[in-house]
């Protein structure tokens, strides 16, 4: 109980610090489900003060036809309340080349999103409630890319087991507002030691399994656990998307001013290459 109220007081951005502070005893078994999920979010979406990565997405249909997207992702954590900024630059395919996309995440309010279309030199804001929409036609939603608020679901620790030789928590998360999402609940397999999310299953409104997330390759980069290859598979239609983080570096010194309309319209060459 104490920990859960602690979590409410401590901004998400400082959670990582808390996690590695030596004077906080780390008895993972004693953690409430909500905090386990919060720590997983930290590992998956918040490592480092900032991050620069080049991502390759393979979108593969059941028949095996393949589409590719390549993009540079810049992310910066702000000091307060789990706020983040994202800047994405698309390298390919041709019809989206040069497009940029910016997210200002300030939980618990809806994130703000902007898109820049270079052919028209047009900056467009994107409506707020599309967080479960597909990100660039992939099996990942916008929320899968930039994270889902911990408080949007009710989390329950179901059991502890081993998955591929790793000790894991199995957590069930049920959305508080069921109408806002495309799933009725999720099951997550979370590493007990490093809080890496190894597997996640999404169940549709008929409670049938429809999407499966797997962390296919996880390694430490600059001492931070990083899922460098991940897959989201739609088991109902056989479509899947594999995302590979080709180059990842943390704490590169991204400036706050980078995440602005100025750079959306005039992408910063030194960061996006």
């Amino acid at each position: 109980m104490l920990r859960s109220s602690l979590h409410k007081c401590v901004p998400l951005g400082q959670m990582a610090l808390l996690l590695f502070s030596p004077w906080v005893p780390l008895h993972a078994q004693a953690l409430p489900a909500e905090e386990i999920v919060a720590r997983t979010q930290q590992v998956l979406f918040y490592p480092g003060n900032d991050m620069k990565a080049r991502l390759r997405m393979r979108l593969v249909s059941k028949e095996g036809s393949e589409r590719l997207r390549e993009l540079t992702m810049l992310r910066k954590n702000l000091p307060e309340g789990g706020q983040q900024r994202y800047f994405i630059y698309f390298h390919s395919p041709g019809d989206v080349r040069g497009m940029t996309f910016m997210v200002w995440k300030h939980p618990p309010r809806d994130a703000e999103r902007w898109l820049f279309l270079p052919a028209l030199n047009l900056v467009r804001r994107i409506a707020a409630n599309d967080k479960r929409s597909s990100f660039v036609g992939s099996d990942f939603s916008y929320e899968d890319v930039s994270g889902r608020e911990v408080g949007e679901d009710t989390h329950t620790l179901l059991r502890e087991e081993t998955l591929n030789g790793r000790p894991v928590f199995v957590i069930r998360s049920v959305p508080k507002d069921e109408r806002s999402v495309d799933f009725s609940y999720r099951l997550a397999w979370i590493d007990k030691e490093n809080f890496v999310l190894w597997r996640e299953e999404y169940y549709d409104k008929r409670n049938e399994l429809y999407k499966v997330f797997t962390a296919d390759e996880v390694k430490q980069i600059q001492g931070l656990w990083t899922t460098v290859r991940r897959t989201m598979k739609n088991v109902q239609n056989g479509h899947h998307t594999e995302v590979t983080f080709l180059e990842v570096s943390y704490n590169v010194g991204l400036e706050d001013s980078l995440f602005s309309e100025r750079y959306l319209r005039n992408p910063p060459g030194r960061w996006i290459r």
Partner: protein
Amino acid sequence: MQVHFASILLAVLVSASSLLAQSAPTSGNKKFPLRIHGFLLGNYTARTADAHPPGEEGGRFLWADERLRLELSGDTAKGNLSFLFKGDLFHDAVTNKVDGVVREAYLNYSRARFDVRLGRQIVTWGVGDLLFINDVFPKDWSAFFSGRPLEYLKLGVDAAKLHVATPALNAELVVVPFFEPDNLPGPERFFFFDPLADVPNRLLREPATTSGNSEFALRLYRRVFKSDVSLYAYRGYWRQPSFRPDQLPLPTQLRGFYPRLAVYGASGQRNLGDGLLSVEAGYYDSQDDRRGTDPAISNSQFRFLVGYQQQLANEFTLGAQYYAEVLTDYSAYKATLPSGFPVQDRTRHLLTLRLTKFLKYQTWKLSLFNFYSPSDQDALLIPEVWHAITDRLSLTVGANVFAGRRPTTFLGQFDRNDNVYVVLRFDF
């Protein structure tokens, strides 16, 4: 001149292709990486009505072209100096001519709080969806009504742009020494209302390129209470010409010119509920006819719009806008309008609706855009299907359907130009 230009463009394309052969498309010299991309486009638009405009270009096809887009870009290692060249080489199958056009060609220099962009560039301001109030930059309405891809709606300006970013305020200043008018549908390919159609003798003059004639456009913007707020000011010209007859009631010659215009406006955009709210307004100060008594020149007017966009279901978005133009000095306008000319309402109301649905992992996009004016009683409906066959190859099929109760209103005059278009695009 056109052939000469086409041969220059061809030379650029050929030398670029040889560069392409030597290096991978996305790499290039490490110190100054050069990227070469582009697309091949086939764009065919057929009239659905039997009536064709007289003359060589008035055939079954309103538009038909094959086009090569070449896009060269590069920047220095630090990224503060960059350039972009976008040029098209095309074969116009309606006139059977080969020609070229430089869409954009600029140098950009960034340093600390400043960006300077010099050369031909496309500038787009404002928050309207296909409705423009403070976007005073040139547009190609002929391309838009001809079923060409949307990017051809915007025309570049040969200009210098300065962007200043401070924590409190951002400013964009665009100086345009070379006037560029809108490209409007012409009589060669379109039917439209022309009250002086009997006077073919026309002399159209653009503002001379002198320092006093340069256009200035300023935009200031910042966030205010979670909203993106912009203020705008413009000093330049109407981009659609006015024509003054040499005598009335039986003119022998029309002198065309671009009257002076100043625009002052503001826009705001923010999340509201589950959607997105857009608001924009502007005052058009028709400086050569401030009292509104010159029938050849558009009167001063207020323009405003309010729009709302929301996702209704997964991958299904609705956007709606209300737009109005209100003439000032309406009685002066009515009193001086020559007899026989259609009378415009004081306020022109316009509603737009956009429905967009993505299917099959966004490889299909169904969209419908609709302009409807309850005051003019006219409309334009644009249904479109886009399909990505592969990452590189896409096919678009759509239509422009005009409707109107009177042949003199803005959209109603195009009633006989309904068309169906096909666009095939291959990216490289």
